[in-house]
């Protein structure tokens, strides 16, 4: 069945419900994108055939593949988004310099996203508490 590689990506993250960041599964994503490419090309071909030869019986198959394309898109997007939520949480847990072993698990684009997030957060914190700003990532537990 289609979309099996895509669901594996989701399971990989779901297993780590505590927010740990596993290594970026570049190979997994590549395989899902390849499946999407194949599905799309098959659909293009069948759509042309359905139009030019009036083969309306191909429509259910075209819809089937389209559902799988949408599914693969959703799985990839959710995988990447959930990883961003984990990475965002790391800023609050570890501060603005992440441990090396965590950075190794991030792809270049995730590091870039993290840098942008840090900047947004810093800008926001500077806007609080008068001239000095306020570091809201400190003192996250109440005083005794």
């Amino acid at each position, binding site marked *: *069945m*289609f*979309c099996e590689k895509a*669901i594996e990506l*989701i*399971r990989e*993250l*779901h297993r780590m*419900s*505590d*927010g*740990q960041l596993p290594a970026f599964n570049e190979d997994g994503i590549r395989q899902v994108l390849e499946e999407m490419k194949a599905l799309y090309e*098959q659909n293009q071909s*069948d759509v042309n055939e359905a139009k030019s030869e009036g083969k309306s*019986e*191909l429509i*259910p*198959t075209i*819809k*089937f593949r*389209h*559902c*799988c394309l*949408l*599914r693969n898109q*959703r*799985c990839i*997007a*959710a995988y990447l*988004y*959930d990883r961003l*939520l*984990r990475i*965002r*949480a*790391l800023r*609050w*847990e570890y501060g603005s310099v992440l441990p090396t072993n965590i950075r190794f698990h991030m792809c270049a684009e995730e590091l870039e996203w993290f840098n942008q997030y840090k900047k947004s957060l810093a800008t926001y914190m500077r806007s609080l508490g008068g001239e000095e700003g306020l570091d809201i990532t400190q003192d996250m*537990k*109440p*005083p*005794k």
Partner: protein
Amino acid sequence: TPSYVPVPPGVGMEDNFFSLDDILLSHERLPSRMECLFPRLGFLEKSSDSRDIQEGTKMEMPLFLAKGLYERKRRVVSVELPKVYKEGWRTVFSADPTVVDLHKMGPYYYGLGSQMLHFDSPENPEIAQAILQTFIGRFRRTMDSSQNAYNEDTSALVERLDYLERALFKAGQSGLNSFQCWERGRAS
């Protein structure tokens, strides 16, 4: 990492695009019947040598696909209601919902049941009621046990819960642990 808050699953018949739970739920397979020919997809159906999936073929289909293909006005695919939502089991639930092993019968009893309402069935009102009443009947025990089991092995308490109930149990435990931490002066 307490700062990691994943996208929660949708409530009722909704589902959230980025929710890992919703994606996993919608991967559950349902016994289905293809109500028309699906040309050139025969390779997906292991028992057949045909190039096509023939009309009338029965196969297990993931929920996302069944939902995507289902049409109210045209017979494209029909989905069989899993037995846990059928009348026989609904009667069991109405007698005493607390005795059922919802992990074995599920594990997404509430989630999958809610999603089944997307397929037009004359039993939908009864199915919806059964799911709701089952939740109401079981919720109190889940909540009570999550608030009373401190620092102990909870596997026996959760093993018969479906995933929604396990999430509620976990939330209860988290609250209990935080409270205990505070009482011991360890929350600062």
